[in-house]
């Protein structure tokens, strides 16, 4: 239930979801604000017009709003998936359903995932049922270091999924970017600088920019898409793993201070955590990568996020090239694992409060969108989940999921298949008649 741009879209939404944002208060909650503070018992959260107006203990319930008594259960902001490809892939291995990759397109930076997002793709319903309410969605165009423009989406059961189109530009650096730029990191950084120069030229005089089509490093559309990046209006998310590569990107930031860089992946970040913190560059990191799975992640450890956090880096969890099209729900388990690390001598994890923030407010803040998403602080979107237990614990279920103040359906293909085959034996009629 976002701002409606078109009358037709509004009609479609009204048809799809007759239920509009309700004013609702959830009381008697073990309330998690999501900003790193500890849960409070007996908390209340109030949502009006799709936004949080108050949350905490001692919050009064306004008259006339629907009241849900949480009966002491855990209540938190919905999970903010810090990096995903939700909604643009139905089945990874079925190309026709996979809009993450545009490898044969002549365009790169101009590619925009927003129109490709399908709110009815099953991964959205499955992740919604597990309390994921909002996600960063990135393209994965494999023909250039510039992957294109990503979006912030909600996982609501309506036809309007894109909360924030063209919310960032996504760039591949490191091994993968090197491969696409011509085979080396030298080529990748030259390509990047050249593109930023060209975009700057374009921005000074768009009318004189010559579109050289397929021969160009940047088409006119690509250059146009990079203007908000060089002016710092949208962040540049840079996927990078190796410590030395991280430092190269931090150098670029020093050279072009208007760039709003967010580092993504960052497996070796802990080894240069002080430099990242000093540069004031936020990070969306993979959580449990602990194998030297490539030569750019030799120092991989599950302590990465904990050590970066301890060094003062703003860090949230995202799933970078890690089941990113379907399994955003796993960030809860990942965050729980970071809590478990605290009991291993020599390891650095997160305490529970910081771990939850790493999958709610921190990734939103890293994107520069902490004022809208990721916590139950007043003014944020009304994304709230009531859980049947600790949301980071294995097997905890989301009992109620509210997005933009709208209570969401939780059934999906998997619950339907389960119900059909709970007793696998065939009866008087084939299974196809059971529904």
């Amino acid at each position: 239930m976002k701002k409606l741009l078109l009358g037709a879209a509004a009609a479609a939404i009204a048809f799809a979801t007759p239920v509009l944002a309700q004013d609702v208060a959830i009381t008697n909650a073990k309330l998690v604000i999501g900003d790193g503070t500890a849960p409070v018992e007996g908390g209340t959260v109030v949502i009006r017009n799709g936004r949080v107006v108050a949350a905490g203990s001692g919050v009064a319930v306004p008259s006339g709003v629907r009241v849900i008594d949480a009966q002491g259960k855990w209540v938190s902001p919905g999970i903010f998936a810090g990096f995903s490809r939700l909604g643009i892939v139905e089945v990874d291995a079925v190309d026709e359903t996979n809009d993450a990759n545009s490898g044969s397109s002549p365009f790169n930076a101009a590619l925009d995932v927003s129109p490709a997002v399908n709110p009815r793709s099953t991964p959205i319903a499955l992740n919604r049922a597990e309390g994921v309410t909002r996600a960063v969605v990135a393209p994965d165009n494999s023909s250039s270091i510039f992957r294109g423009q990503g979006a912030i989406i909600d996982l609501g059961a309506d036809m309007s999924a894109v909360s924030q189109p063209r919310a960032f530009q996504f760039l591949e650096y490191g091994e993968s970017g090197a491969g696409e730029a011509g085979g080396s990191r030298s080529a990748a950084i030259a390509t990047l600088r050249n593109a930023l120069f060209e975009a700057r030229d374009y921005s000074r005089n768009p009318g004189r920019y010559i579109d050289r089509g397929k021969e160009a490093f940047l088409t006119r559309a690509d250059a146009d898409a990079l203007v908000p990046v060089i002016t710092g209006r949208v962040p540049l998310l840079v996927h990078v793993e190796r410590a030395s590569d991280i430092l190269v990107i931090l150098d670029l930031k020093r050279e072009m201070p208007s760039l709003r860089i967010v580092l993504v992946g960052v497996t070796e970040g802990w080894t240069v955590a002080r430099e990242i913190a000093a540069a004031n560059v936020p990070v969306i990191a993979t959580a449990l990568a602990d194998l030297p799975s490539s030569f750019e992640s030799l120092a991989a450890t599950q302590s990465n996020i904990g050590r970066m956090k301890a060094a003062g880096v703003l860090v949230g969890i995202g799933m970078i090239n890690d089941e990113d099209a379907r399994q955003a729900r796993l960030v809860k388990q990942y965050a729980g694992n970071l809590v478990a690390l605290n009991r291993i001598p020599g390891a650095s994890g997160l305490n529970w409060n910081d771990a939850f923030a790493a999958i709610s407010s921190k990734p939103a803040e890293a994107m520069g969108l902490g004022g809208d998403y990721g916590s139950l602080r007043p003014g944020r979107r009304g994304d709230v989940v009531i859980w049947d237990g600790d949301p980071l614990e294995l097997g905890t279920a989301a009992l109620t999921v509210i997005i933009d103040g709208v209570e969401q359906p939780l059934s999906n293909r998997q619950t339907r298949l389960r119900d059909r085959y709970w007793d696998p034996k065939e009866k008087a009629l084939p299974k196809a008649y059971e529904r």
Partner: protein
Amino acid sequence: MAGGALSLVTSLAACTAGGEKPKTASAEPAAKGPGKGKGYNHDPFPSTYKAYPGVPTLVTNVTILDGEGGRIDGGSVLFRDGKIVSVGKDIAAEGATVIDGQGKYLTPGVIDIHSHLGDYPSPGVQANSDGNEITNPVTAEVWAEHSVWPQDPGFARALTNGGVTTLQILPGSANLFGGRSVVLKNVYARTPQGMKFPGAPYGLKMACGENPKRVYGGKGRSPFTRMGNIAVDRQTWAKAVEYDRRWDKYEEKGGEAPTRDIQMDTLRGVLDGEILVQNHCYRADEMALVMDMAKEFGYRVTAFHHAVEAYKIADLLKANSTCAAVWADWYGFKMEAYDAIGENLAILEKEGACAMIHSDDANGIQRLNQEVAKARQSGIRAGFPISEETAWKWLAINPARALGIDQQTGSLKPGKMADVVLWNGNPFSVYTRPQMVWVDGALLYDANNPKLRPVSDFELGQPGEGDVK
């Protein structure tokens, strides 16, 4: 010459005096027919695994899940000389190292029936990619152990983070007949043979479904379709039956030995019950067809792996005594994984079929206890109560049975290998990690002891060496 022979004898004697002589393939002469099973050497690359020394250990006051469905609260386990000695309420053991297990759980080591560690090691560069002989839909002649790089850093992670003590390494699934698997103890060695689980039967990796038809159809050759998959399978089994018959005849009656065919040796092993079929197969309809194909040629599928739709045919699997190895929540990455549900394991258990968890993943193998925790909760929420002790069978005795090693490991029973994990809390909680892991009674991981943390050759001198990981 005489002098040379003498010095050889001397050096061998020296070897013997200094310890056991290293076993090699050439240490055993090739078997000679006739005689049942004597036609050729069935074990040319024998295990040289040797248990490391341990101390008699008594863990007391601990919650025990024995891996076969048993549970003792406030129990004790004693192991000595590499074997479980006793499991019970009150056990006294003079001279044993005593570990107080207050607030902790003790379980048998986790067994992963489906791993590619060593064959697809880290770092995952092409030069290390040795898991799939994608040159022919039938490559029953390849043996996974000949690809295992025993320095894969992944073995250490599986041990220290996952409590994995035994794992089966399988060839990949590009081929209908992928080749032989190998079962390993999760103990670093210089050679794959040094990790081989003593006496474990071989497996034959088979695959149905999308992978073989995609790989070979993409090359414009058979199989191009699912019907092509079954056709090539049946042609190959028909040939194997003939090969088996010729060798049986030779071994019984002598005469001219049939020509060796390394590919057919493996299939003959299956037909004779020496080698267990481990079949990659997702869809219910295909699993049913494969079980009938097995009956046609006189073999049995021991376990279907990646059995995403096993829940739809739990009754058929049970009737065929065929196990299903599954994930907790993987879904949707390919069409044949589209119907995955979180209650798969629970439905199999409810219907009395043999079920287990598996990883197929260098990261996932580090958290199989967590995968079981999720699967268990899904079942409970759907209305089928599953106790912790029942769920642990999915990590222990069930995979041990499907690997044919349940007499040696897979549960905390007297006489079995002391493959044991002490967890620092309830292992069904995300907040719990292994605290100590023993393999054959040898303490090979201790969270509190940085020296008991394996560092593979590859990681030595690299960034992050010896970190907790």
